[in-house]
């Protein structure tokens, strides 16, 4: 299943929520959708899920337009919204049963599908509870269960980890990885970027309705952080040498922006790996007792902070 967002634009009166954005992702891929509040993430996700209509542009799901054929497209998309159901008069099981019926599952097929989903999302123990009585994490599971009950090829998850405790987050992450293994195309928005780095293959960074960066995580990291940051740590008890080391580094070629971070010295390496080797050799020759010399990887959070300005529409 290929999801192609093509020149998508959405206006709400004079506000342009989504401004001509294009990206695509495929089965088995987990794509992170990142941006500050009000960037247009939810609007885009709602358009992909056929809830909202685009002002112009389109989203194609294996060639099916979400604007032209929303009924067909709905068979392929499961949407987990950021707000959760809160009925006081319907149980978890009845809720999942309704959606299974609504998506055309009948008889034994339906019973099996609901049981499998209840087990997969670990809601079997609470199936007779009313939705209103559930905690946020449990509601999130029910919401995910609802989106999965008819086995859609594409999953669109809007802030699924928001408000979850650490255990629930780990479980959610595991669930998503399992779904990716089952060849689902997943688009997930979250503000917890460290988690996205761990589970996503690709990322779309959006601000003020415009895409700032898109591609695989590696490509985006390479593109957005071409300079490598190196961290040096001296043997315990030799931290008094830090100012001396800092002074030395500032006079070394290919070193920029050297600074003390906790008990370490960080600097940006403008040269290649040979340059890094030379620097390390030079420092050892000068009797600095180095125990750790490592390259720190830029993560999604660093890139996000670099490329976005925090603007909203």
């Amino acid at each position, binding site marked *: 299943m290929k999801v192609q967002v093509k020149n998508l634009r959405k206006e709400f009166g004079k506000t342009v929520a989504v401004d001509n954005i294009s990206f695509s992702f495929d089965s088995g891929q987990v794509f992170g959708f990142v941006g500050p509040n009000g960037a247009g993430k939810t609007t885009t996700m709602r358009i992909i*899920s*056929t*809830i909202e*209509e685009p002002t112009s542009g389109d989203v194609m799901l*294996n*060639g*099916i*337009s979400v*604007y*032209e*054929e*929303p*009924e*067909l497209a*709905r*068979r*392929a998309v499961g*949407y987990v*919204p950021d*707000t*959760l*159901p809160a*009925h*006081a*008069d*319907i149980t978890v099981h*009845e809720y999942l049963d*309704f*959606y299974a*019926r*609504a*998506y*055309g*599952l*009948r*008889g034994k*097929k*339906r019973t*099996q*599908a609901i*049981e*499998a*989903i209840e087990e*997969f999302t670990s809601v079997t123990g609470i199936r007779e509870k009313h939705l209103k009585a559930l905690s946020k994490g449990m509601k999130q599971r029910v*919401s995910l269960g609802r989106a*999965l*009950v*008819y*086995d859609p*090829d594409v999953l669109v998850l809007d802030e699924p980890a928001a408000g979850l405790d650490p255990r629930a987050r780990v479980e959610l992450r595991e669930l998503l990885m399992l779904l990716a293994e089952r060849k689902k195309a997943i688009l997930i928005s979250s503000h917890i970027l460290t988690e996205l780095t761990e589970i996503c293959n690709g990322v779309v960074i959006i601000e003020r309705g415009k895409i700032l960066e898109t591609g695989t995580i590696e490509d985006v990291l390479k593109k957005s952080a071409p300079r490598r940051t190196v961290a040096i740590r001296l043997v315990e008890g030799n931290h008094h040498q830090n100012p001396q080391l800092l002074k030395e580094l500032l006079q070394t070629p290919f070193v920029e922006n050297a600074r003390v971070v906790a008990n370490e010295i960080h600097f940006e390496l403008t040269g290649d790996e040979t340059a890094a080797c030379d620097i390390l050799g030079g420092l050892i020759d000068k009797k600095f007792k180095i125990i750790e010399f490592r390259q720190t990887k830029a993560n999604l959070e660093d890139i996000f902070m670099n490329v976005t300005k925090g603007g909203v529409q």
Partner: protein
Amino acid sequence: MSVAGIKNHFANWRQWELNPIVIKELRQAVRSWAVTGMLLLFLSVLFITSLIFLVSQSFEADDNMQLGSSMFSTFMVILAVTSVFFIPLYVGVRVAVERQENNPDLLYISTLSPARIIRGKFLCGAYMALLFFCACMPFMALTNLLRGVDLPTVFFILFYLFMVVCAANQIAICFACVPASRPFKILFALGGFIASFWIVIPLILVSFRFMGSGIGSMMGEHNFWIGVLTAVVVSSAVIGLFFVLSVALISPPSANRALPVRIYMTVIWLVGGLLNLGWVVQMGEARLMDVWGYSTFAAMIFSLVVAISNSDQLSHRVQRAIPRSRLKRMLSFMFFNGAAGGLIWVAAILAATFVVTKEVIILFPKLSTGPTEGRHWFVTTTAYAFDYALTALFVHRRFLSRLPPKITGLLAALLAGAWAIAPSIVLFFLNQLSWKSIEGLQLGNVFNVFSLLNEGQLLYHQWFAFGWLFVATAINMKWFLRQVKSFQPPDRTQTPPLINEISPAA
């Protein structure tokens, strides 16, 4: 659905399942405090009422031969008030809440078709009405034992009340589907509440009349059954009309929303005409044809406002459905989405209504009053309606093209309103604060047609309206021809994309 499809559907009757919406709604209704509370209150009121009647009778020395009738009347009023006010309100509010944009339930993005969703909501309302009727039934059956009312009357009134409640439910669902903001929906609910009085009061009065005459004695009459048939057809037509309107309202904008509505309206227009003709033949009174004429006029003026609010741009989905054959394409033009086709459809129906009504009057000249006045009124107001519509279309296209086409209908209504109010206010002040000026001739004001002093003034209106129509048609002609020309199927036939069958997650 093809014949094979229908056969297959009935062959697999063991796999038939209830509409999912009905199951969900009824599950929620039985747990809702509103329904259970109302049902308990309803039963308590019925019980206390029966008790009051029976206790007060025990103090009377003589036998009351009308006790059953009095009790039945009271129960009927309680049932009518409860079911006409409460059930449509409950069903309508639930639909309106689900239709809110911020609702996370996403019922409307499931693969359930819009028709199935509306059918589910309607059936839920009907089941709830049945629940209340069943709760009332033992009390009503008791009244038969107390004399004063016969069983056919009891069942006939209940059936008739049930039809009205179903129609009220469907109307409430339709208004709840209108994509309006919450304040507007609250206004609709208030309007509906007030309108319910207009339903309940005549309903009760008619029921009293039936009770007075006794249905049992009327059942042998031919006219009684024609009347029943007409009432059933009219109620079903109203339910059907609001059903197709509701379906159109929740269908995606890319769908051919106009097609089912226009086909349905054309069919009920034809059936209504035939039914009305039957009455004319039966009663020998051609004036009865006006019932059809007036209701067609009202429905078509509303349709005109909706039709001109259609977008000129057809979605690919609609374009793909345009037939290649020229004859079929011409017919489709009138029934598919689009303002130009809608104008032709409304004009065709109104013209046919006018011609048929006129022909019937010529064929059945047994009339109490002259027919010409009514026909002139019909022609003049229709011409004015098209004047406003075509002018609004021109204004929107020429000056307000950045605004969505849905404002065109509003523009037409504003034009009619402004033309009616503005000159009246000016004349009112010019004529030393006298309202007499309003009664004079005001060309262009459609409402003035209804308060004319003589037929000569009507003629002036007619000339003016047709003159305006000529100009309005001329300035819209280029646009209209463009619309006709662009009403073509796409060049390449694309095979519809395939999506895998839904399989259970297991």
